[in-house]
Every structure is written in structure tokens, then in C-alpha cells.
């Protein structure tokens, strides 16, 4: 297990060598967050209610997307496709190391850095904007929130691995990634809580795995879904994880046979 800890640590340090890059990336995230924040700030005036959301609930939702993104969405797995295409995957195939666990821990190193920044940003925003936020004090909801975040991390990880393995068959790994990240931002509920959509549309979104990455955990934090629905959601997440896990194993095995260890 110690080896994976070192993978995370090296990734953390690697990010530090590109401090400026990383800082710019965080600034982009904050600007996006603020634009969504102020939009909702003016759409829902203080004291009123829209789509069943009071101003403080909506703004809490938006601010929480930052930390949820840091936990769930931040990843380095987009490098997998290139790693396969360049033939660098060979370096891992000859070592007694699990490639998926290696990437999972690389992600943990990356997530840790993003979480630290997200918390720092939110603290600063908190003092500048003094937003009317909702603090959850119920221990049950808080711990269920943590469980949902963990499941979301695992689910999203397998989706990413699957996308990366496109590299076994095609050098064009970036286009699918790009489309995916656009769809993800919308379908996962990064800009608004999904339940403000018409009910039929919302039902479709709920059936897809994306909504469980951002929307679902935050709704748990806000205490807006009941225990049966939460358990139902967990069950669905575990099911999705199972499906993706099996799919990843099959594709990996097929991929290794197709792998050409290119690049001289």
C-alpha cells in the first residue's frame, strides 16, 4: 500500500512544480463559480423563493459545487489516452503495480491539491461576499454526504479510465474528452440544481450516472432528500460502479491485446 502513497505524494509535488499553471487553473474555476453565483444572486432576491429554492439554499448549492468538484471531478486521468498512444504504458506493464490503483492514487494527489485550494478560495469568498449560506448541522446528513462523495469519486474514476482507454484503438483521445467535459458540467448540475428542470427532463437526468457526481451529494448536504431516496441513490451508484468496473476490466483486457507499444 505504501507504494500508492508515494504515487500520490509524487503527484502532489509534480503539481507544485507547475504552481503558476495550477494557480491559473484555479482562477478560471473561481471566475466561473462567481459568474454562476452572481447570476443566481440576482435571479432570486433575498427573502423570495424560486423553483422551491430560497436565496441562501441556492447560493449554498452553488458554492458547494466548488468543493464537490475538487473532490469528485478533479483528475489527471485525461493523461491515460496519451500514455497509451505514446507507448509509455509499457513502463507500467513491466512493473508489479496495478495500473488502475496507480491512477487512482495519482488522482488522490491531484484532488488533495485542488481541495486545499478550493477550501482556501471559499474561505476568502466567505469573508468578502458574506453570502447567506446554509450550514448543515445534522450529523446524519453530513456523514451521508461524505459517503456520497466517496461513491461519486469511484464512479467518476471508472468513467475516466474507460475514456482514457479509447487510446488503445484511436489516437484521437481529446475530442471525446472535450465533449464529455461539456456534457458533464451540465448533466452533473454544476450551474444549477437539476430539480429546477421540468419533471420529465429531470427524471432522465436522474437515470444517468452524471447527476450523482455533483447534484446528488449537494442535495444530501442541504438535507433536501429523504433517507429512502438517498439509499435508493446509493444503490444506483453502486450499480453504476459495478457496471463500469466490469466494463473497464473487459476493455482493459481487450486493449492490452490491441496494444502496440508504439513510439519506437
Amino acid at each position, binding site marked *: 500500500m505504501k507504494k500508492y502513497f508515494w504515487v500520490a505524494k509524487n503527484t502532489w509535488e509534480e503539481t507544485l512544480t507547475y504552481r503558476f499553471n495550477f494557480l491559473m487553473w484555479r482562477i478560471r474555476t473561481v471566475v466561473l463559480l462567481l459568474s454562476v453565483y452572481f447570476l443566481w444572486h440576482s435571479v432570486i432576491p433575498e427573502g423570495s423563493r424560486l423553483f422551491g429554492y430560497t436565496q441562501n439554499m441556492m447560493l449554498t448549492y452553488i458554492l458547494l459545487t466548488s468543493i464537490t468538484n475538487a473532490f469528485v471531478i478533479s483528475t489527471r486521468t485525461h493523461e491515460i489516452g496519451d500514455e497509451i498512444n505514446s507507448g509509455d504504458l509499457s*513502463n507500467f506493464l513491466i512493473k508489479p503495480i496495478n495500473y488502475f490503483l496507480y491512477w487512482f492514487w495519482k488522482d488522490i494527489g491531484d484532488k488533495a491539491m485542488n481541495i486545499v485550494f478550493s477550501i482556501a478560495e471559499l474561505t476568502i469568498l466567505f469573508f468578502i461576499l458574506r453570502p447567506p449560506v446554509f450550514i448543515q448541522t445534522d450529523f446524519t446528513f453530513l456523514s451521508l454526504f461524505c459517503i456520497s462523495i466517496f461513491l461519486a469519486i469511484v464512479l467518476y474514476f471508472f468513467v475516466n479510465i474507460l475514456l482514457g482507454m479509447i487510446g488503445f484503438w484511436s489516437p484521437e483521445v481529446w475530442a471525446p474528452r472535450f465533449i464529455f467535459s461539456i456534457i458533464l458540467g451540465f448533466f452533473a448540475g454544476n450551474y444549477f440544481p437539476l430539480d429546477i428542470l421540468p419533471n420529465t427532463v429531470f427524471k432522465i437526468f436522474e437515470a444517468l450516472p452524471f447527476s450523482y457526481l455533483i447534484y446528488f451529494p449537494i442535495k444530501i448536504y442541504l438535507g433536501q432528500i429523504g433517507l429512502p431516496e438517498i439509499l435508493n441513490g446509493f444503490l444506483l451508484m453502486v450499480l453504476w460502479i459495478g457496471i463500469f468496473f466490469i466494463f473497464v476490466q473487459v476493455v482493459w483486457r481487450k486493449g492490452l491485446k490491441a496494444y502496440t507499444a508504439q513510439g519506437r
Partner: protein
Amino acid sequence: MVISVKNLSKEYSVFQKETGLSGNLKSLFNRKYETVKAVDDISFEIEEGELVGFIGPNGAGKTTTLKCLSGVLYPSSGKTEILGFNPNERKKAFLKQIGLVMGQKNQLWWDLPAVDTFILQKEIYEISDSRYNKTLGDLLDLLDAKDIIKIPVKKLSLGQRMKMEIVTSLLHNPKILFLDEPTIGLDVVMQQKLREFIKEYNNKYQSTILLTSHYMNDVEELCKRVIVINHGKILYDGVLSNLVHEYSPYKNIRITFKDNVEPNKFTKFGEVEKYAYPQLELFIKRDEVSSAVSKILSDYEVEDINIEDPEIEDVIRKVFGGE
């Protein structure tokens, strides 16, 4: 016998792109694939402690063979067995005993000092602290590289980086070591050092080493046995000196004359390579060398005469040229 390869073949399907605008458009919708046989039905065995050189021109199938042996590639057909394992199963006990150095691939963490890669390597291979310290110390001594392990890899020169690559691949003392172009891009001094290192490593740990190289010097100095491969087929497998005898039944004779001579008169002895006064170079059949030389010495005024085996590189070129 630690390595056994039976009827190994590996095919790639390669996408053929047509040139020109119409060709580009065509290939957008209708792609032509062609099957290329990188390795074509080869078999060989290697004993423990052997140091074997793979030689062949670019694209001959050397690297593909090494990749099949180390379990990176799945063979299209045939069977490979390394230390009793099927490499493609990638069993932990197998992976712990092999090492692969690819001269053109980087396994170090680019932005971090090499020592960070070493520590991760130590954990991956579950090397004890004492063994790690000893092996690392030994390797750094052998390669004279103590002072560069804390510099970020991206700031190292190619030669320094190669040393770090080698340390990384050897930290776990692999029983079988695959070296793919280990000396590529290095200067002559560094090449020589690396060769000495490989020799010493082979002696010290009795490890089996398979090496590919473009540089004949590498092979000449290190390997008793060579496997010559071209177009995916083995052309020769055996002792290096025999290769020279088999493929080049001639010797190189270089004569320096006192006076100008007529080069055409020497064609009866053998093949005249070139003549530029005062030096004449000719190839003479091995068994005719002594009689030819004594005849020349009695008939002409000779300042100097030199008889040697042809350069291995020339022989190899002949083999590949299909002559």
C-alpha cells in the same frame, strides 16, 4: 535455460495513408489497413548468465521481440517462456525478476528528482531499506552518478538521464535484463562507460542480459553470442566470431608500396577494393592469403603490409544487403 521462444510471430495492422488531397479525403472514409509482420516465426533459447546481442537494422523486429519477451506485447502466435512464466500473464513473481531499459523511453518522473522515482520503485518492488541502500550505493558508484540524483530529471543531460534510467531499472536486481538501445544518443565516452557497466553487472550478479543496439561496438565488446535479425526473421544465431567467418570468407589486405604499381595486376589474387598510391586494399580468400602475400612480397617492393578480418560492421552490412 531461462528464456525459451518457440515460433514467435507478431503482426501489426498498419493504416496506410494516401498522399494528396483526394487521397486524404479517401482515407477519411475508407481506410486501408495492411498487416505487417514485425516478427516472423522466430525461435531461440537463452541460458542463465548469457549476454546476448540482438542486431539488425531499424524495423527489423528487435524491439518487438524484446517487448514480447517482457510481456508488454501479446504475440500473434507462438510461445514464450521466461523463468517458467508466460510473460503476458504479468505475474508479480515474474515482473519482480525482470527489468527493461528502453533508451528512447522515459520512466522517470520528469519534473521531480530521480531519487523520488527510486523511492517509488523501492516500494513497488518491495525492496527492504538495507538492500535498497546497498544496491543504490553500488549502482551510483558504478555509474559515477552520486551527485545528480537530487536534480529534477528534466534538467539532466541525456547521458545523466540514461544513468538514472538504468539505476531505476536495476534497483530490484532483475535476474533478466532487457536493454533496448541503451547507448543511443550518448557520446563515445559515456557509451564506453555504460558498456563496462553492463559487463560488470553481468559478472557480478550472473544476470541474463538481452541487448539490442545499432552500435556494433556495443555488441562486439559485450556479447559472445549474437542473434542477427532482419525483416522479422533470424538470419544468424551463434558466436560472433563465427559470423564473420561464415559471412565473410575474405580477409582485408592493405599494402603500402614503395613505387607506383598497376592495380589491375592484383586482380588474380583477389578483389581490389581501391588503390591510391602508395596504398592498395584488396580482399583475398582466407585460405589463399598466405600464398598470395608471399608472392606479392617477392615480386614487389613493399613498405608495409597489414592483414586483418573485415570490420564486423561491414560483414553485417553484407548480411543485411543480402549479398
